[in-house]
Structure formats: C-alpha cells, structure tokens
C-alpha cells in the first residue's frame, strides 16, 4: 500500500480551509472529509472577546504526527493533514483544521473523527478565554475522553 501523505502545521497565522482542502486532494481521492473548529463567541457574562492558545513546541508537532500515523495505520488513507493555530484568536476565527483524503468515504469520515478525538485529548494545547469577567483557563471535558475511548486499539497492524 502506498504511504499516506501526512502533514502537521502549528502556526500563529490565520489559515484558509478552502486552500488547505485544495492542497490535500490528489488524483485518486474519491472522498475528502474536513473538520474546521472555530472560536465560539459565547454571550453575556460568558462572552469571549479573545482566546489565547498555548502549546508545547516540539511535543505538539510530534503528538499530532503520531495521531495521523495511527489513523493511517488503521485506515487506507491517501492523505491527512492538521493545521492548528496558537497565540491570540478572536471569536469566530478558525482554530483547527483537519483534512483526510481516501478512496472511499467510510474511512475518510472515521479517520477525521478519530484524529479530532485524539487531538482534543492528547495534543498539548491549552486554551484561555478572555472576556468581560476576566481570563480563565478552559477546563478539559470528560466527554472528550469518552469520545476518544470509543476507538478500540487497532489490532490489524496495517500500515
């Protein structure tokens, strides 16, 4: 099996989901699934005027790549990419983009979902929300751990 093209970018600059998707698709992609996460604005006392994203340079890229490699070992992917922003972001701005290209849609959906679940629970990023009531670190959510636990360890050792 051909090796999937895997790319990871951690950056301060904004990104364009359309351009990222265009760069991902290859001649054989039958199916492309993308996820884009945006800063939620909240409202009232919970309004978010700015989101600050801290990360662990080095470990972040390494863990994102490991997640893509796990996905490519489980499903026959043509390409998978993650772009994650760090620094200060405004409400509505895209934070994260995950794109997966495969011959068929089943594996493209599963792999994109899988990558997001592990990105949320394993990649060293931390969010701090700034709003009218001050700044507060976002708490991790048990529901994210539960989603990640849906994926049984891969047993077929493909890759």
């Amino acid at each position, binding site marked *: 099996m051909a090796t999937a093209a895997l790319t990871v970018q951690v950056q301060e600059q904004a990104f364009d989901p359309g351009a990222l998707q265009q760069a991902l698709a290859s001649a054989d992609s039958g199916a492309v699934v993308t996820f884009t996460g945006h800063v939620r604005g909240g409202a009232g006392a919970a309004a978010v005027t700015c989101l600050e994203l801290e990360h662990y340079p080095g470990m972040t890229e390494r*863990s994102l790549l490991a997640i893509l490699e796990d996905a490519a070992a489980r499903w026959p992917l043509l390409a998978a990419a993650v772009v994650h922003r760090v620094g200060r972001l405004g409400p509505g701005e895209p934070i*994260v983009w995950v794109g997966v290209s495969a011959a068929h849609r089943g594996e493209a959906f599963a792999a994109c979902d899988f990558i997001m679940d592990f990105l949320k629970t394993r990649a060293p990023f931390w969010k701090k929300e700034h709003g009218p009531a001050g700044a507060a670190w976002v708490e*991790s959510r048990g529901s994210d751990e539960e989603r990640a636990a849906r994926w049984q360890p891969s047993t077929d050792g493909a890759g």
Partner: protein
Amino acid sequence: MLRVLFFARVREQVGCDSLELPWSEDRATVHGLLSGLCQRGPQWQAALGQPNLVVAVNQRVADSAARLQAGDEVAFFPPVTGG
C-alpha cells in the same frame, strides 16, 4: 542537568516557564523530582499536587515512576484543551 518545563495553569501557578536542575539521586524518578519541587512553597505544592497533573518525559506522557537521566526534558501541565 534536567530541563523542567511548565505549561498553562501550572506555569502560572508556579510563576515559572522552565528551569534547569542538576541530575541527582533524589531526582532519579519523576516522583523524586516532583517531591523536591513541591518543597519550594505552597504554590508549587498546589500546582504540582493536582490529581490531574500530566507529566511528559522527553515529550512523551509518562507516570511518576518514570526514571530520569541527565539530559532529560520533563514537563508538567494540566489536561489538554486544544482543538
């Protein structure tokens, strides 16, 4: 030497991004390193005593029994919240 890093809430609580410490027998495990750091004061104790504290050794998640060698990079941080 051991390179020790702190991130996010833990970084803010201990008031320090990173520090370098000589390797010693006392610091031959994550647990030993942590015990020493906790004696630096109540904020250190509070930040590093949290039950959900995550430890990474050389950029891989580890547990408190993990052994440390000179040159290792050890990081302490809260559960991740990216994406």
